């Protein structure tokens, strides 16, 4: 009996698996419960200062600032989208028109001559924030339908001084 035990002993070391499996399951449950599916989020950078006139250096070519105006009703719905003096309407197509007009102004994406152009967004106080984001997005660029890559138009976005709420105006 002694002999056989000694023979089988050193040849096979049994690692206790139970504690490891316990811990691994604990970890697994922890990470499973922590899992939160969130949509990826992205940023739009905006140029500040608000309202203060942009310090245009003298050597800068004379480029017109692009002014995008968003008018709203008292409930915050978009009533009019304007680019400079031009009225673009207030439907979904208006934002596409804005996108096309911006492209016309910068001539071609990545144009070095127009990379310093700034877009100024003037929105009514009550306007829902989502319309501003859409306008900012349409000025920033578009997704190329073929390559699914982003084509950048204008990166410098700033806000006009905030308006007053309707009641106070």
């Amino acid at each position, binding site marked *: 009996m002694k002999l056989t035990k000694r023979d089988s002993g050193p040849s096979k070391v049994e690692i206790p*698996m139970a504690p*490891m*499996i316990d811990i*691994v*399951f604990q*970890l*697994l449950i922890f*990470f*499973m419960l*922590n*899992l*939160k599916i*969130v*949509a*990826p*989020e*992205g*940023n*739009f*950078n*905006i140029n*500040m*200062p*608000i309202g203060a006139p942009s310090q245009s250096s003298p050597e800068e070519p004379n480029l017109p600032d692009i002014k995008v105006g*968003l008018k709203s009703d008292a409930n*915050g719905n978009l009533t009019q989208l304007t680019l400079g003096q031009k009225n673009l309407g207030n439907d979904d197509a208006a934002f596409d028109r804005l996108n096309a007009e911006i492209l016309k102004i910068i001539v071609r994406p990545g144009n070095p001559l127009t990379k310093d152009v700034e877009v100024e967004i003037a*929105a*009514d*106080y*009550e*306007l*829902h*924030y*989502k*319309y*501003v*984001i*859409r306008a*900012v*997005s349409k000025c*920033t*660029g*578009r*997704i190329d339908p073929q390559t699914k890559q*982003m084509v950048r138009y204008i990166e410098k976005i700033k*806000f006009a*001084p*905030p*308006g*007053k*709420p309707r009641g106070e105006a």
Partner: protein
Amino acid sequence: MAKRKSDSSVIEPDMTPMIDIVFQLLTFFMIVSNFENTKADERVKLPQDALAKPPEVKPKDELVLNIGFIRNSAGAKVDPNPVLFYAGSDIPLDKIRPELEQEKRLFVLKAGSEKVLEDVAVIIRADADVPTGMVQDLIKTCQDIGYTKFSLKATQEE
């Protein structure tokens, strides 16, 4: 002899495949779960946009401001006035200056100089229905306090 008999009756299942799978699952959940978004508040229904891309360069410091509405379980607004979800409390937007100033003091204390505010990006997560003027007023307040970098958040559209 009796003892030996009982030994042989113990069935040892092969644990290896199970452990393999469990480790696979563990790794999957570890990679998928992100702890970075902890400052984001789920109550804010961000606007959606196809062009919203995660920033290529992460700012050194960031101050995330969650602006949204208090909603009931059905998603309807309980209060028409937006609030700032800040550290577990809901603060009306016109009363947040002390909190922003406190954040500034913390940033300055951590870095040791006022210059740090040039590197702090104020990330604005505003609800899609928040009036724009309120967001602009908030940015204005931040500027008065000394923050200079701002960015607006949107979720990526499918």
